[in-house]
């Protein structure tokens, strides 16, 4: 049962990822990405990481992607498709780099396939995630907040210069 659900959700995730890169229409692509993020959240849910799944949906699917779609709606307001790729040369680099990533993933998956399954599954509850963030991973966590602050100051500066 869990296997069927896993493969069904995985198939949706892969199909929507393909839709994202293959559709010439920007809005369709963005909506495919929303579907992809949602199906990955469903995979988190199946692994017992409830908080991660909820955060994924709220932050990525609910907030960031709404901004993406909003920006596309403002910049490309019609049904016009984006036309031919203005930077076709980039594909010459993209194909080998993508192949390299695929190879790396294959190595990881094959290497892990026969490894013993983790007996202790860490709890995915909000309390467990929060405790980890504020103890073991305190430094990276605080570093992230500094990064976000820097980005926010940068946005303010750019917005003020424009006005």
């Amino acid at each position, binding site marked *: 049962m869990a296997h069927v659900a896993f493969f069904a959700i995985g198939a949706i995730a892969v199909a929507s990822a393909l839709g994202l890169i293959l559709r010439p229409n920007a*809005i369709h692509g963005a909506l495919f990405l929303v579907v992809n993020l949602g199906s990955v959240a469903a995979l988190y849910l199946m692994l017992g990481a409830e908080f991660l*799944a909820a955060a994924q949906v*709220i932050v990525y*699917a609910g907030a960031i992607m709404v901004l993406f779609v909003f920006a596309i709606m403002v910049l490309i307001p019609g049904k016009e498709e984006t036309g031919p790729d203005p930077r076709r040369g980039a594909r010459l680099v993209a194909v080998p780099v993508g192949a390299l990533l695929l190879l790396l993933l294959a190595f990881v998956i094959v290497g892990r396939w026969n490894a013993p399954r983790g007996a202790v599954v860490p709890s995915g509850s909000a309390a467990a995630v929060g405790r980890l963030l504020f103890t073991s991973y305190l430094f990276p966590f605080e570093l992230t907040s500094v990064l976000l602050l820097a980005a926010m100051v940068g946005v303010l500066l750019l917005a003020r210069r424009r006005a």
Partner: protein
Amino acid sequence: MLIDLGIAFGRVAFVMLFVLNVAALLGWVERKQSAIMQDRIGANRASIFGIRALGLFHPLADTLKMLTKEDFRPAGADRLLFDLAPAVSVFFALVAFASIPFGDTLQVAGRVVPLQAVTLNVGVLYVFAMLSLGVYGVMMAGWSSANNYALLGGQRAAALMISAEIAIGASIMGVVMIHGSLNLMDIVRGQGHLLWGWLPAWGIITQPLAFILFVTAGIAATKRIPFDTPEGESEIIGYFVEYSGMKFGMFLMTDMVETIVLAGLSTSLFLGGWQIPYLFAEGFKFPWGAGIALPPLLVTLLQVGAFVGKVAVVIFVLMLIRWTLPRFRYDQAMRLGWLGLFPLAIANIVVTGLVLAAWGNG
């Protein structure tokens, strides 16, 4: 196995039928309430065999009318997204109610059944996530209609949604901090405690500012007056300008369902959910010592009734607000969200944290 299946079905069916039926009824409530507030008679013409029943047949007549109308699609529309948009909109509104508890537990065939459609450890975040995904239906409708007014409506909806969503998320944090749980059932149970032995620890008493912020941002998130800039029927008509028939009806229904979800969530977070003051599992126990013993089934029924009653009262108040205030201008709504609600919600979190620390872990 069969009993478990039946129980699961019953839990889902109760919530589904409750939300759908109340949503249908709300169309009538809205018209009648506005009529009374504006000293009119209101909808009273629909009748079956001469029985008018205060216009209660109007939702039925409206549904029949919408189902039999022409389903028009503009020539330049993106067919798939145009057809999908109302379904997406109403779907996320309908599933959002699933983790809101409508009662405590019920003993059925030797099993303890929690009275909510789905038991989730992150229930608050779930409702919040589903409400925030609903905006895609509106944005898809606005973009796919090939109409500039619809597009404007979709853009406004997106901007409004983000500013409201952040305020909602920040305002419920105070409640979550007090109860130390994201599970709505735990939060409602926690509100059964009595402060100083007599005052029920409802969210509206422990978090009064958060309640006001939550309801304000909640009205904005459901795009209702005074935050109905995405619709704005007197200026841009809005994201559903090209829709007709039942597809238009589904957008109307989304509004009603979202109002019910908002009422259910505010009831659970701030008004004690299914709790009745001084009513415990064994019956009433008053602070002055008196008590009335009640059978468990009656207690459960009373609690479910209390939840439904509270939701009805919140919906009534939401409709009062809707028919009282004029629409905010788009920039005013944005400013209120980012410069009013959000900083206050953050301040509320800080103050709640300080008080909890001083209190000694709440």
